């Protein structure tokens, strides 16, 4: 698996320049607009998409078919992408943490909380998408991907229009406390599903 992760990291390295530029741009924008939340959201999406980009590179090169002729298990191919997701969300966590602590737009505690929450959201996002992409591939799964992004966003918009009050701070804190476990359970379920899909996949 180490080899697979290295491959993905090197393959994605090409994106690093553009990425760095984008990030610098958004940092600047966020400070200028004094909107840390926006930066947080954008960072989460940018990093969460990376494992999917890696998947799409693999698909384009038809790497999986080839990789399975090597001493690599189907499980490794699946879990490798989750690990990649973990690495990138971890990075996103650190970046937002640093950003938040340095710009001090929020209290340090809140910054920590938001960083963790963003990481959680990113991981859940991947947990929902990855089994879909493993089953149908990135090309075909693209539509579903947009749906997964659009549905919660639309739900939030609709909810605020309908005047549904946002959850109280106390409830948010409870959720925040439970969330690591929820995220882990969702991830575990997702991995289980992805591996099942992959075991039976034909190339």
């Amino acid at each position, binding site marked *: 698996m180490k*080899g697979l992760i*290295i491959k993905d990291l*090197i*393959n994605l390295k090409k994106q690093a320049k553009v990425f760095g530029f984008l990030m610098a741009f958004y940092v600047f924008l966020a400070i200028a607009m004094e909107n840390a939340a926006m930066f947080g959201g954008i960072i989460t999406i940018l990093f969460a998409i990376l494992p999917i980009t890696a998947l799409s*590179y693999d698909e384009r*090169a038809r790497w999986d078919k080839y990789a399975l*002729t090597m*001493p690599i*298990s189907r499980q490794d191919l699946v879990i490798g992408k989750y690990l990649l997701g973990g690495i990138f969300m971890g990075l996103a966590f650190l970046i937002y943490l640093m950003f938040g602590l340095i710009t001090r737009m929020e209290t340090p505690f809140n910054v920590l909380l938001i960083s963790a929450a963003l990481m959680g959201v990113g991981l859940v996002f991947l947990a929902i998408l990855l089994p879909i992409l493993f089953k149908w591939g990135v090309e075909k799964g693209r539509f579903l991907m947009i749906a997964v992004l659009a549905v919660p966003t639309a739900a939030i918009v609709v909810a605020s229009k309908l005047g549904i009050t946002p959850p109280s701070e106390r409830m948010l804190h409870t959720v925040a406390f439970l969330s690591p476990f929820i995220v882990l359970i969702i991830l575990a379920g997702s991995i289980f599903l992805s591996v099942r899909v992959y075991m039976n996949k034909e*190339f």
Partner: protein
Amino acid sequence: MEYVLKAENLIKQYPEFTLKEVSLSLPAGCIMGLIGENGAGKSTTIKLILGLVSPDSGHVEILGDENIKDKRDTREHIGVVLDESCFPENLNIKDINGIMTHIYQTWNGETFYGFCQHFTLSPNKTIKEYSHGMKMKLAIAVALSHDSRLLILDEATSGLDPIVREELLDVFLEFIQDERRSILISSHITSDLEKICDYITFIHKGEVLLSEEKDHLLEDYGLLKCSQEEFAQLDPQGIIGYRKHHFGVEALVEKKHYGAEYIIEKPTIENVMLYHTKEKVI
């Protein structure tokens, strides 16, 4: 005899194509050519052998291992080259070496770089910038840089020019100097196979039409040329397929049925393949 690969009665059904009871056995130290027209089932057979696809029935044994799809240790000793390059596009040779070191336990970087040099593969370009020929040579370099005992090539040389193909034939022959190793090479360029194969398996429309020693094939069969009248008088038993033209008839026959009074030439593998797919004499 020690077999590196044994496939028995593989059956695989697709909506528009069925592979019917394909069997083949590859002894150690030998090269087997897999021939057949496009869509005959060569790639499907190879995918079944590699565990990329599961058979509806039948089984495969590689290097004594029957469950290659799930057990990955055997794959340490299999080198595979497919008909297209499957390397991630942004990598270069150095990156690939770095990755393969972690994938193969018996990976030998020195050997790999040696092949890359031998094939004059540019170390500064990424895969994206490689030509088709370079990508294939790279895949072959990878396949030969770990302890491969079975080399499987699926139409790997089809897009390459004759000079490169000749170079590669030498590489394959060198590979096989170690008699524990074998090669399974599928190709529709039968002239290449003619030069190096010990065995030929011919797949046509999902079935194995023949699987035997190349020498036997080329010695037992012959290309008989005669007039249309003479053809009408031939014993139909030994005729595999024939072609009538304006000035006579050419037929692939089993030599033993016909005497020295006929002009019978040594066939090529291509003749054998083409005439097997033509109509038989009723």
